[in-house]
């Protein structure tokens, strides 16, 4: 197997006295989708935030392409090629799609450093066409788009900037059936880009449709990791709840 893009080893995270993550280890490989599942409060979002540089682990090591790293903040993780699609999307609603695609990383041109809107628009159009995110145009305003289109934009943005890893925290929680299906297709298509994907989802059906491996958390404990092809829902549910079914 290839060298993992991301290696988490013995990650431990406590908030004051509350242990949110205890002894977590996981390797993510290029082209792989790993699902992170567990009940509310299991520590899924905390883990995402550790990988994306928002939280520092109390102890443990994070290696990126084999190299030990420590992110001082989210910008550090972003610069290292890790992108997050947040539950609440983090889109600026009244701005056009292309400005959201380049939010905080706007392209400029000329000696005055003026915005290169044309290039941002063209690049955005190219990307959404490539990923088949159907929107009226790159200059459409975000709030005129449907929930599925917005999630498509958020994922397209992550895809554009991520060179190593995309973290998805419940990407379809707010979507209808058809929109969920579109977003799932989109996520599957990202596999070809040779980046790793870590997805948090409450829908086991979705997890089984998308993932290569499933990692189960319960109250901060890593219960286990299974190959999706060789496990089934009953086993995963038993691992999540701690009860035999």
């Amino acid at each position: 197997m290839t060298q993992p893009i991301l290696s988490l080893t013995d990650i431990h995270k406590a908030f004051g006295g509350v242990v949110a993550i205890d002894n977590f280890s996981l390797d993510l490989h290029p082209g792989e989708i790993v699902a992170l599942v567990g009940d509310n409060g299991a520590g899924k979002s905390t883990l995402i935030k550790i990988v994306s540089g928002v939280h520092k682990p109390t102890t443990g090591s994070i290696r990126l392409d084999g190299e030990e790293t420590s992110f001082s903040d989210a910008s550090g993780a972003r610069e290292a090629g890790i992108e997050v699609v947040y539950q609440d999307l983090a889109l600026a609603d009244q701005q056009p799609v292309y400005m959201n695609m380049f939010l905080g990383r706007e392209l400029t041109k000329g000696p005055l450093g003026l915005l290169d809107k044309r290039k941002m628009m063209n690049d955005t159009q190219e990307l959404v066409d490539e990923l088949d995110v159907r929107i009226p145009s790159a200059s459409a305003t975000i709030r005129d788009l449907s929930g599925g289109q917005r999630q498509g934009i958020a994922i397209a943005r992550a895809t554009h900037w991520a060179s190593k890893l995309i973290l998805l925290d419940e990407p379809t929680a707010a979507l209808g059936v058809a929109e969920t299906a579109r977003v799932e297709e989109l996520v599957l298509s990202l596999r070809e880009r040779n980046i790793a994907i870590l997805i948090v989802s409450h829908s086991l059906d979705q997890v089984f449709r998308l993932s290569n491996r499933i990692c189960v958390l319960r109250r901060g404990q890593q219960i286990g990791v299974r190959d999706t092809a060789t496990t089934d829902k009953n086993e995963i549910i038993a691992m999540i709840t701690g009860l035999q079914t």
Partner: protein
Amino acid sequence: MSPTAIFRKYELQNYVVYLGFIAIFLFFAVTLHDAGFTSTRNLTNILLQTAPATILAIGLVFALSAGEIDLSFGSAVAVSALSAAVVMQVLPMPLAILAGLGAGLAVGAFNGLLVAWLRLPSFLVTLATLGLFAGVARTMTNLRSIPVTNDFFTGVFGSGKLFGVPSLVWWTVIGVVIGHLVYRHTRFGAHVLATGDNARAAQVSGIKVPRVRFMVLTICGGCAGLAGLLYAGRLQSATYTLGESDLMIVIAAVIVGGTALNGGKGSIIGALIGSLLMGMLNNGLILMGLQVSDQMIVRGLIILVAVAASLRDTTR
């Protein structure tokens, strides 16, 4: 498409200000023709009188777009004009210009520090500093007016001309062009809009949100400083009441010009048109021979209607 969707799609609210401008212009042109509303002299006068308000409006577009507001310019203008006038009496004129601009910038930076890093609401902070600096303006010269007699200064900031164009018009044009460029065509402008639109999204995208908040309020202060210089230059004196009556007019100009009260959307050109509209209104009501109290009532009512028309869409 629903009516609101159509309204939004074609950004009709952006045209309300232009339509209103033309309607009011035509109304005054017809009814006040004999009073000389359309005379070159009167129209030029409107342009000159609105210069400080337009400069203030540019600053306010930045503040509102970032989700903040500045009310303190109502007294920062006076502090700036007085600082320039006082310094000019004892020190070389260039230092007076620096003093005037510096006073405005200092007020803005003070607001900015409190808002950006202590996270106090800008409405309350600038309401407080509005009062605070109104007091400062009064104590600076014990309520006295200070004459401004330096010819170069009154030329550059007041009655002078360059290539046949009055200097106040130059300041308006320069302010609008630079303001528009920065607002629409720089990363900073984009960050201002993103911050006002969704501060969390801006922050997780790596935009330094506190810095943006600090900057927009400091820009407002700088605009108040320049407006103070323009008043001092045009009136050839400085007094503690300068800028007081601009508060309502400038806010109305900016809102009518298509800038959202709750951030994320705005227009510098719209603010210019809004400011000219307010100036025209002022002028027309005076030419109509209304008493000051009646002017205030009519102006208040018209602003209400104009603001209501331009806000139609933002409460989706």
